[in-house]
């Protein structure tokens, strides 16, 4: 249980708010590269409470600037991408990628007015099929090359959803290992039963005997010992990390994935499920195989949560806590210590920036950033490729090419044309 004030401090993301300032120290994915592939594309976005437009100009450069023209407040979603920047469709004011106005066609030729006009403009970079933005103070740190973004010979998919709740309750779910045996275990068995599907041996119901959390260089490593296991098992000995501040790394020998939570505003989160399917030994993934981008549904046609897949179950749990979970009425127990540890880490890292230091996971050394390998158990739940084996029960079931991916990973021949 937290006070109302401490809950607010934890969940607010606007510029000038403590957590908003901390989050602005990191690169965040804001779109899939395929969404802005074509020159002249403009995509309207809201990130960390700021209305923005992401565009690709005619020189093939990406830009990210405030949505409103400084002149009369028109939305730049309908602007004209030029050779170098974005021109307002209303009176032709041209902004470069920093948001600086560089042309006002109807002002006197020698006017210096444009020099005093600037809208927000942020640095953007592409990596691993995603577009990342940095909205903090200069100089920007390195865009972290986490292993999944640069790993070779894997098949990537990117799922997404706009989730109507605050990002912190989504992250806290990732510091709560025991929910797995219930929400994705017993509850899933209940869903199977309701749907008249065979329950078989659903291995995710295994009972947790022990959970642990260790801080490491890039975040927190989660560990678990399940019934029938010891600390020798990979679930404990290796575990998998929360990459500070807003990634979960999860997977097994057959698929590695990130769940990335980017605050849109206080009550909405842009969620990415970024998966790398690992082929069987000796299998080569076709060169330039596309990264598919797909939406993961939250609700069905009746407005009810889609609860027959793991990520749908998670979304139901996150959203039903309310747009911003009211932590002044929560009742945490000992199994929630990871959640408390994460909250404290957020506060501690905030203090670092107040002291003029870089917060955790700020990478400034390009050499350190060549390839950052993260720990992750491969033998999950002592079931080997448990999660990749149930890819049809994950968000990846919405990937239009899932069966083809499975075929590729087994070393089969591609049968369709994605």
């Amino acid at each position, binding site marked *: *249980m*937290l006070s109302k004030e*401490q809950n607010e401090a934890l969940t607010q993301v606007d510029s000038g708010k403590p957590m908003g300032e901390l989050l602005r120290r990191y690169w965040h994915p804001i779109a899939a590269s395929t969404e802005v592939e074509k020159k002249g594309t403009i995509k309207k976005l809201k990130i960390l409470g700021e209305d923005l437009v992401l565009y690709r100009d005619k020189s093939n450069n990406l830009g990210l600037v405030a949505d409103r023209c400084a002149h009369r407040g028109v939305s730049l979603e309908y602007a004209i991408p030029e050779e170098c920047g974005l021109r307002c469709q209303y009176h032709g004011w041209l902004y470069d990628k920093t948001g600086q106005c560089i042309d006002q066609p109807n002002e006197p030729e020698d006017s210096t007015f444009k020099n005093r006009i600037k809208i927000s403009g942020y640095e953007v970079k592409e990596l691993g099929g995603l577009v990342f933005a940095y909205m903090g103070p200069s100089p920007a740190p390195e865009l972290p090359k986490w292993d999944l973004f640069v790993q070779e010979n894997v098949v990537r998919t990117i799922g997404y959803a706009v989730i109507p709740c605050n990002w912190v309750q989504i992250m806290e779910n990732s510091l709560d290992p025991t929910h797995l045996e219930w929400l994705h275990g017993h509850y899933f068995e209940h869903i199977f039963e309701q749907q008249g599907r065979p329950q078989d041996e659903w291995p995710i119901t295994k009972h947790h005997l022990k959970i642990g959390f260790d801080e490491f260089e890039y975040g927190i490593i989660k560990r678990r010992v399940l019934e029938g296991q010891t600390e020798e098992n990979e679930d404990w000995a290796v575990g998998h990390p929360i990459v500070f501040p807003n990634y979960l790394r999860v997977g097994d020998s057959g698929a590695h994935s990130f769940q990335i939570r980017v605050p849109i505003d206080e009550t909405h989160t842009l969620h990415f499920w970024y998966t790398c399917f690992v082929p069987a030994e000796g299998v080569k993934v076709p060169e330039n195989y596309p990264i598919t981008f797909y939406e993961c549904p939250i609700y069905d046609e009746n407005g009810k949560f889609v609860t027959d897949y793991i990520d749908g179950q998670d979304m139901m749990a996150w959203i039903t806590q309310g747009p911003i979970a009211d932590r002044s*009425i929560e*009742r*945490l127990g*000992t199994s929630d210590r990871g959640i408390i540890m994460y909250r404290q880490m957020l506060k501690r890292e905030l*203090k670092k920036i107040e002291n003029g230091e870089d917060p955790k996971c700020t990478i400034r050394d390009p050499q350190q950033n060549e390839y950052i390998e993260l720990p992750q158990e491969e033998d999950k739940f002592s079931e080997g490729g448990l999660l990749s084996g149930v890819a049809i029960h994950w968000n990846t079931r919405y990937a239009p090419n899932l069966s083809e991916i499975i075929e590729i990973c087994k070393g089969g021949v591609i049968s369709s044309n994605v």
Partner: protein
Amino acid sequence: MCETLKESLFDARETPCPLNQEVMKMAENKVDEIKLKYCPNCGESLLKPNSLLNEYWISQDTAYFCWCGECSWRGEIIEIIRVTAPELATS
């Protein structure tokens, strides 16, 4: 009682929807407020937004996880209801 809880109770009495009834039920079980207020190390208020004072429960015990935003002291304080001693060795 904190403001949020008061508001929730008020809302619950006005509108007897299942969610609000649940809030009322939780409120009835709530016999305390966050009792701890100050950092045991430096005396600064732990209720400030830059600190963390997280109440939770260890079986029957109420525990307070504290992190002071001023001095960075971190620790847990457990409210004592009954003083017990460990069982003495028999051999």
